[in-house]
C-alpha cells in the first residue's frame, strides 16, 4: 500500500493528481461507507414508484435494505427492512401493495406506517415490553425535491434542499419538461454489476472527453442514421458551443451541453421516424407556451449530465436516465438504472423516448457496455500496479481562465475535492476559474 495523500491538489502549480490507492483499497471503502455514505443525502427512489397508499418497493439505500412505501395516509416512509424482534427482513417482494409487513420467522407484523401490529403469544413478554417502541425503524431523514426522494442516516444534517445547492436548478430543468412538473419512472429497471470501483462510474458518467475514443461505434451509428453529429457552430446558441463543466457546490457538478443529436422534447431526428415529427414539435410548442421562449429553449435544447454527490447521476440527453450505484466491494459496484419521462407523455412519444434511451444507454445499448468495459480495464490496469504507478492525472482545463468545457476535468476535480474533504477533513478548495 502506498502512503501518499489521496489527492494532490495544487491549482496554482496546475497540478491535480489522484492516488490510485483510493480506487483499490478495501480499507478506504470501509472509511467511505462511514464518512460519505453515512453522512450524505443518498438517493432512495422516485415518487412515481409508489403512487397509491400501500404501494411499496424494496431495495438497498446506502447499503441498507429498505422498504420505501406510501402508508395508508399517503405519507412517504423509508423503513429499514429488518424485524425489531430478531432481525429478518419483513418484506421480500421487489414491489407491491400492502397494509401490513409480515415477518415469517416468528410472525411479528407491522402496519404500513411502521407500527408493530401483532406479536404472536405476547403474553410471554414482561410488563416492560412496549409495542409502541418496537415499530419498524425509519431512516432518520427522508426528504424529497420535485419527486426525487433522498435518505440521510445522519440525523443532524441540513435539509435536502440546502444540501442540493445549485443542483436544484438542474433538477428543475429536467422536471420542467413535464407540463405539470410531474415525471415518472418507466417500468423496466436495469440492474447490473461493474467490476470496478464506484468512483470510476462517477467520473465516466459525465466525462465528455472519452466520447470519441470510447463511443466511436455509437457516433458512427448516429451518422449512418442521418443524424448530424458535428458540433454546432455560430451565433445564438444558449451555451458555449462545446458545452461546459460546472461546480454546483457540495460536490455536485454538471456538464451542460447544447443539444445537437435530438431530444424527444425538442428536436426531431431521423431515428425517431416520420410519424414522431409533429409530436416532437408539439412537445416543444407546449414548452414555449408554458415557459416562454428563453426558458423553453434552455429546457428543450440543452443536455445535462447532472451528478448529485455521492452516487446519483441524472443524464438528460437523448432520453433521461436516473442511475445510482453502490460499492459491493472496492472493485465491484452494483448499478441500478431507470428511464424517466413526463407523466403526460403520449404512448407514441413514450416509445420514441425508450427507443432513444436504448440506442445509447444500458447493458444492451450501443455505448454503455463500452463504458463498462473501459472501467473494468482501468480496474485491471491499476489493481496491482499502484506502488509503481501511484498517480492518475486529472488536470484538463486547470490552467484555463473562465469557463471550463465539458471535455475538461473541472467537474471531476469537484467530485474528488469534496470526496477528499469528507474523507480527511481537508479545507474546501476552488480553482481560479470558478
Amino acid at each position, binding site marked *: 500500500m502506498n502512503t501518499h495523500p489521496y489527492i494532490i491538489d495544487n491549482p496554482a502549480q496546475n497540478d491535480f493528481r489522484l492516488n490510485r490507492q483510493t480506487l483499490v483499497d478495501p480499507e478506504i471503502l470501509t472509511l467511505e461507507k462511514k464518512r460519505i455514505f453515512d453522512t450524505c443525502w443518498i438517493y432512495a427512489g422516485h415518487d412515481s414508484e409508489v403512487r397509491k397508499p400501500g404501494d411499496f418497493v424494496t431495495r438497498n439505500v446506502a447499503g441498507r435494505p429498505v422498504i420505501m412505501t406510501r402508508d395508508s395516509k399517503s405519507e412517504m416512509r423509508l423503513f429499514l427492512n429488518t424485524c425489531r424482534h430478531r432481525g429478518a427482513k419483513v418484506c421480500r417482494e*421487489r414491489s407491491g401493495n400492502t397494509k401490513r409487513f409480515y415477518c415469517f420467522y416468528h410472525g411479528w407484523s407491522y402496519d404500513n406506517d411502521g407500527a408493530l401490529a401483532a406479536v404472536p403469544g405476547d403474553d410471554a413478554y414482561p410488563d416492560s415490553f412496549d409495542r409502541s417502541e418496537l415499530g419498524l425503524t425509519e431512516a432518520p431523514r427522508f426528504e424529497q425535491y420535485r419527486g426525487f426522494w433522498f435518505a440521510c442516516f445522519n440525523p443532524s444534517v441540513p435539509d435536502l434542499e440546502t444540501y442540493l445547492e445549485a443542483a436544484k436548478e438542474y433538477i428543475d430543468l429536467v422536471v420542467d419538461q413535464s407540463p405539470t412538473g410531474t415525471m415518472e419512472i*418507466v*417500468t*423496466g*429497471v*436495469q*440492474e*447490473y*454489476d*461493474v*467490476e470496478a470501483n464506484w468512483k470510476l462510474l462517477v467520473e465516466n458518467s459525465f466525462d465528455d472527453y472519452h466520447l470519441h475514443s*470510447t463511443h*466511436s*461505434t*455509437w457516433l*458512427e*451509428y448516429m451518422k*449512418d*442514421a442521418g443524424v448530424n453529429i458535428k458540433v454546432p457552430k455560430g451565433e445564438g446558441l444558449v451555451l458555449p458551443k462545446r458545452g461546459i463543466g460546472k461546480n454546483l457546490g457540495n460536490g455536485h457538478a454538471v456538464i451542460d451541453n447544447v443539444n445537437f443529436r435530438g431530444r424527444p422534447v425538442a428536436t426531431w431526428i431521423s431515428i425517431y421516424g416520420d410519424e414522431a415529427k409533429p409530436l416532437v414539435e408539439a412537445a416543444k410548442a407546449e414548452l414555449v407556451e408554458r415557459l416562454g421562449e428563453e426558458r423553453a429553449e434552455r429546457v428543450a435544447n440543452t443536455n445535462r449530465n447532472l451528478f448529485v454527490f455521492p452516487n446519483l447521476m441524472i443524464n438528460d440527453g437523448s432520453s433521461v436516465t436516473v442511475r445510482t450505484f453502490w460499492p459491493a466491494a472496492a472493485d465491484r459496484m*452494483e448499478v441500478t438504472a*431507470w*428511464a424517466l419521462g413526463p407523466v403526460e407523455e403520449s*404512448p407514441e412519444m*413514450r*416509445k420514441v423516448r*425508450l*427507443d432513444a*434511451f*436504448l*440506442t445509447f444507454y*444500458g*447493458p*444492451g445499448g*450501443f455505448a*454503455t*457496455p*463500452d463504458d*463498462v*468495459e*473501459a472501467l473494468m480495464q482501468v480496474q*485491471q490496469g491499476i489493481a496491482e500496479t499502484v506502488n509503481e504507478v501511484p498517480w492518475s492525472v486529472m488536470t484538463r482545463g486547470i490552467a484555463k481562465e473562465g469557463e471550463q468545457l465539458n471535455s475538461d476535468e473541472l467537474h471531476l476535480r469537484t467530485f474528488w475535492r469534496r470526496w477528499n474533504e469528507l474523507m480527511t477533513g481537508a479545507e474546501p478548495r476552488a480553482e481560479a476559474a470558478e
Partner: protein
Amino acid sequence: MALAETKPVAVGISRSEVEDFLYLEASILDDWDLDGWLELLCDDASYLVPPNEAPDADPDDTLFIIADDIHRIRSRVKRLKSPDAHAEYPPSRTRRLITNVRILESSDAELTATSNFSVHRFRRGGKGGVYVGRYIHRLVREADGFRIAERRVILDAEELGALGAVSFIL
C-alpha cells in the same frame, strides 16, 4: 411416433425441423458469422431482451435491455464487427446449448416456438458468465426455409447482476 407429430397445433411442421433451425442459428452466432445470421431474419424482424423483472412486457411502454427493429439489428451487427466495439473486442467466445424445444402455435404461414437456452460466455482472464433463459422465436415459413420475424430472449436471473452486459447477440 414423435409427440409433436400428434399435436394438432403443429400443422405440417415437425419439431425436428424447428430444432434444426434453432441449432443452425445457434451455431452461426457461436461462430460470429453475423452476416450469416442477418440472412436468417425477415426484413421486419425484431430482437427483444425484456427487463428481467417484466419478461412479458411491451417495449413500447417498458424499458427493455434490448428492443431492436431490423434497422437497429443491422446497426448492432455493424457495430459488433468493428474493433471499436470495445465490450466485444476481442469477441467473446460463446457456446449455446438449446433444449426443451416446443411449438406453441402454428399456421401454414408461421409458427411460434419456445426453447430453453444456456449461453456460456468466455472472456480472457476467466471472465464471462452463463446466461440462462428461454427463447421465443416467431418463425415465418419461406420457400427456402424459416425466417425469424421476432426473437424474444427472456433471462431467468432476477437481475442482470454479475453478467454485467448483453453486449453480444444473446
